[in-house]
């Protein structure tokens, strides 16, 4: 059997492992679904209280923000990678992954599979609850197109998680920085409000990362909101981020692991 097939099995094994660990905590899905319900409830009533510039009705702002809430779970998954790496370092399982023929870089990449798939499910659940409980109107004819766009968005988000994972391998920290980055992206990514409300210099920052175009296109596909840029320009931007940053982040992660091996700090946590 070729190495590629064995590596494929190893990728799936990491995902299966994470699924089993997840299922061993029986109330986790319920608690995360409840968190989503609380967020939806909060923003449902906020949308009724506040008249937001650029939105014709409270319902249109609610649709806008529900997609943002769904994307936050995806973003959290991407930025959970450094925390997962840190858990492996503390448990001493990172050593085993590093010493395995599958190797540490591929293992870290495989670790992203379950959280990302799970965030897909959570995002769908959030949108579903928005429809059922709060009367969110999805634009069903373009909803299927959101799946490949979401996949492309993930490929453009993922490198940020891998870069922070590299940081965690070297300095054993990174999770604090990720919470700052998530907060910053929530603002400049237009997850809760349109980026047009931001000062001009922050609007520039909004154009320099993949979260804004991803949010923009997905909103257009899911709730038929208007687009800032043309869809092709936004998709091109996402594609470029994915094509450039994925290989770069993978190389940086591999370099960080080798650096820690040379210094002997790979065993520290």
């Amino acid at each position, binding site marked *: 059997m070729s190495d590629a097939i064995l*590596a494929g*099995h190893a990728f799936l094994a990491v995902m299966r*492992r994470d699924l*089993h660990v997840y299922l*061993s905590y029986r109330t986790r899905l319920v608690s995360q679904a409840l968190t989503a319900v609380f967020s939806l409830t909060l923003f449902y009533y906020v949308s009724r209280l506040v008249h937001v510039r650029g939105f014709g009705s409270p319902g249109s702002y609610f649709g806008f923000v529900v997609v943002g809430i769904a994307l936050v779970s995806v973003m959290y998954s991407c930025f959970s990678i450094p925390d997962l790496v840190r858990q492996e370092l503390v448990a*001493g399982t990172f*050593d085993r992954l590093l010493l395995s*023929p599958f*190797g540490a870089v591929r293992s870290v990449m495989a670790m992203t599979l379950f959280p990302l798939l799970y965030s897909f499910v959570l995002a769908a659940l959030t949108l579903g609850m928005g429809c059922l409980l709060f009367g969110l109107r999805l634009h069903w004819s373009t909803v299927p197109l959101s799946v490949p766009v979401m996949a492309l968005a993930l490929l453009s988000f993922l490198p940020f998680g891998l870069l922070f994972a590299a940081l965690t391998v070297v300095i054993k920290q990174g999770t604090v920085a990720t919470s700052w980055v998530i907060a910053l992206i929530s603002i400049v990514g237009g997850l809760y409000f349109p980026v047009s409300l931001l000062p001009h210099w922050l609007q520039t920052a909004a154009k320099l990362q993949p979260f804004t175009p991803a949010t923009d296109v997905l909103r257009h596909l899911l709730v038929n909101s208007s687009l800032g840029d043309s869809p092709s320009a936004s998709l091109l931007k996402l594609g470029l981020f994915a094509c450039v940053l994925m290989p770069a982040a993978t190389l940086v992660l591999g370099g960080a692991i080798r650096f820690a091996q040379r210094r*002997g700090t790979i065993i520290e946590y």
Partner: protein
Amino acid sequence: MTPRSLSAVAPSGSTDELFGSAVPLDGYESDTADARPLSLRGVSKRWSKDQSPVLDRLTLTLEPATKTWVGGRNGAGKTTMLRIAAGLIEPDGGDVKIWGVSARHNPTRHRRLVSLLPAGDRGLYARLTVRRQLEFWARIAMVPRERFRRSIEEAIDCFELSELAGRRVDRMSMGQRQRLRIAMTFLPEPEVVLLDEPLTSLDAEGTALLNAAIDRLLARDGAVLWCSPSGEHLDMRFHTRWILERGGLVSA
């Protein structure tokens, strides 16, 4: 003499880790002329500039079908030596080879030939059952499909884990966990096994199972490097005994 798996597995370098490799064995760098199961040549490691080196041009060769013991006081560098031999950390100088395969130049290939049991009780997923732990490890160790089921069943049988197969690791005793860790170490059928204080928490029965696994490894010309503090295991049978002190090995 070359190990069985050397001809069975395609080599790969560090960049191949991501994309796999289909390079034929001929294209693979291996110094087989003086190949031994394990060869550490002139290995040095210093943790900081103001400290003396923990390993100072250390040289050690393991012969096929042998069990070697290295003792030494706490902090002498035994664990560092094992970590370097396994390829977990890099030495400042010198080289490490398993059957002629360099840990520095061909890490992926090196990792297929060696297995390390780290000291302590770490390296397990607390929420996974014994069977799932073994299955996961077999996949990560890239055990070929034809050997996959058999290697797991053998690990369960050889280390008498059948009653524990469905039990989660965080519900097991320390000795049971150690038995599982040892089972994982031997599962991929490595050529060289590096054991760091393997008797931790192990009862007499567990020790006998470990010795039986070592005997099976030696029967196929493998080698074992066993490290533990001085004074232990003097009643056990080793082919060679060394003491690690001041960064080098002296005969025990």
